[in-house]
């Protein structure tokens, strides 16, 4: 252990030195050149439109216009004005302007036919660029074009994402099928989840309620979805033990889903009569007002067990410290990295990041869920390999590899 630690410290120091050296070298390499051009006195020349490029990987209606202009005139030109028409002798409409010294303009047209800025795909477009000098002289370019824009069926810049998604889907399906066939998939014990039953039992013995906080995430947050699963399990036990449960919610949609989850759990435990919609209620969706509300519940009702599972932000420590001060057993879990240390300090058990997502698989032991969990591990293994190859590719200048993996949005 100590050897490993020494190695980590050694590598960290080496990394620091390398980074400092690179930063120093970069700062040495930076030079500030400035060119002061002389102000010409002759009338400004015409801009020359050189190209109109359709922007790739979009639904069309977008074109990058490029023109050329003598560099010695940069300081004399205030702006370039850009115009577009459907035909060379058509009505040219002013689109916008570019500052002097800039020789391209991104024309983003509308896809709606009734919009004055309508820019049809697959039809000829003509442009004109006017240079306006400091003295107010305007010089028009020759008409540029025809240019065309077109929409694409597939965003080629997202190929690496597609490959990643497909690979991950294949892993997921493969492991789900293996799990279904009865292959034993190991999942390491999660102390936080193992302690759930003990925590509920303690509250029952003490005759005190259990507080379950779903955090400040919405129903579409993965952490909240994971929390619903654990809530179902907790609610079922609570119903069996006939202990009181309080679930104050931050988001009304989360509240509706949580009511459904708890109601189903009470039904499953054979105690539907004990369920009431008032167990799961809305407090507010103002972050600190929500904290004040929950802290109020804690100091008044003195719950024996507090669960904080879901998406948490700055309120995590305020909740956990208040819970700690009333002597409750606390089990927390979030995928918000910054909040994890706060929970670790003030709670008895903390589920860190993915452990929260894994909880549903761990609780249910459902082969389908376990299979998906195994796919995640393989995904991580591939990510590790790619990182190492990526570092080597950068170090040895294998640009092709890096370009292949680059996502161009």
């Amino acid at each position, binding site marked *: 252990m100590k050897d490993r630690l020494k190695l980590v410290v050694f590598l960290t120091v080496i990394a620091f030195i390398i980074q400092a050296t690179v930063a120093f070298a970069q700062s040495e390499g930076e030079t500030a050149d400035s060119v002061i051009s002389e102000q010409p006195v002759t009338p400004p020349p015409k801009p020359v439109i050189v190209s109109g490029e359709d922007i790739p990987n979009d639904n069309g209606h977008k074109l990058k216009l490029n023109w050329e202009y003598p560099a010695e005139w940069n300081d004399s030109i205030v702006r370039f004005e850009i115009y577009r028409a459907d035909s060379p002798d058509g009505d040219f409409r002013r689109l916008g302007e570019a500052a002097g010294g800039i020789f391209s303009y991104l024309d983003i047209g509308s896809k709606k036919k009734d919009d004055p800025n309508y820019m049809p795909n697959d039809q000829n477009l003509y442009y004109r660029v006017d240079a306006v000098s400091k003295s107010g002289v305007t010089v028009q370019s020759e008409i540029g074009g025809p240019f065309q824009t077109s929409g694409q069926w597939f965003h080629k810049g997202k190929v690496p994402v597609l490959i990643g998604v497909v690979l991950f889907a294949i892993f997921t399906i493969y492991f789900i099928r293996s799990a279904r066939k009865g292959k034993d998939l190991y999942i390491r014990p999660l102390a936080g989840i193992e302690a759930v039953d003990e925590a509920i039992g303690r509250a029952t013995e003490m005759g005190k309620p259990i507080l379950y906080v779903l955090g400040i995430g919405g129903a579409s947050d993965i952490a909240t979805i994971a929390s619903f699963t654990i809530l179902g399990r907790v609610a079922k036990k609570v119903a069996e033990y006939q202990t009181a449960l309080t679930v104050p919610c931050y988001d009304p949609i989360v509240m509706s889903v949580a009511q459904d989850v708890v109601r189903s759990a009470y039904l499953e435990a054979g105690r539907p009569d004990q369920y009431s919609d008032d167990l799961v209620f809305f407090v507010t969706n*103002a972050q600190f007002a929500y904290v004040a509300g929950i802290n109020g519940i804690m100091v008044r009702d003195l719950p024996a067990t507090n669960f904080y599972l879901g998406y948490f932000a700055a309120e995590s420590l305020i909740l956990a410290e208040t819970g700690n001060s009333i002597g409750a057993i606390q089990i927390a879990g979030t995928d918000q990295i910054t909040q994890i240390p706060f929970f670790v300090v003030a709670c008895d058990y903390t589920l860190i990041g993915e452990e929260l997502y894994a909880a549903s698989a761990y609780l249910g032991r459902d082969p389908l869920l376990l299979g998906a969990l195994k796919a995640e591990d393989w995904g991580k293994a591939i990510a590790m390999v790619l990182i190492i190859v990526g570092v080597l590719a950068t170090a040895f200048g294998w640009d092709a590899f890096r370009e292949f993996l680059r996502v161009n949005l």
Partner: protein
Amino acid sequence: MNIFEKMVGLDRRWVFLFLFVVVTGAYFFRNSFSVNVTTTREVRSIYDFVENLDPGSKILISFDYDPSSLAELHPMSRAILMQCFRKGVRVIGVTLSQYGAGMVEEAFRKFGSEADSLYNTHVEYGKDYCFIGYRPYPGFVILGMGENFRIFFPRDYYDTPLDDLPIMQGVRNYDDIEGVIAITSGTTADMWVIYGNARYNMPLALGVTGVMATDYYPYLGNAIFGLIGGWKGAAEYEKLIGEKDAATAGMPAQVAAHLTIVLFILIGNIGFLLSRRSKKTGN
């Protein structure tokens, strides 16, 4: 229980009381000592971004915080707005916090008139800045603005159609502005990274509370080009624009608070080490 064990198990209320006294004292005597603020590259990159924009360029500033973090985040909002107004950079304001609307409206009015008196500008609504208001469900609003601002904001906060505002002429979505600075205290920072930058690839910078700042360092240099964290970051920005205000004034209190925490950590550790030694020696 010996003195060392007492140091280890010090009641938290003593910590609270001491911190309260020290912070209050430092705040009241803030003019007696000044704090030299060193600027960091993550703050400077936002300053440079605005500074390098041409007059008339447009940026979106999203004020996604509520009164709870007003004290911490308002100074950075002020500093950025003052720089924009001074430079002639036009600002489209929006809030994704339900309590933000009134606060942001007041901030624009107040900082606009401050800029007028300080820099002799004539900050005008609709031309130099506009405030398009608040809509719920920030993730969807961020996605919607990436398509067209008019999906969720057909009219501004004062009920004027967006197309009637000179600043919004030709502004359809993020493609038509130079970048986004999101000053945020909650979950919206993640949403700007995930739904804003990852999807629409616009230049994005974040201003966040001190406690959130470390969360966003991993995104620096790829998803976000700059980061302002809490009062310290705001004080850096104030230093960069050459105008000391609330954040700089608050630095003595913040320094005192940090020193207090460091002091208690040291007390705890000294007590811990000495009590362990006394246990080992059997005393």
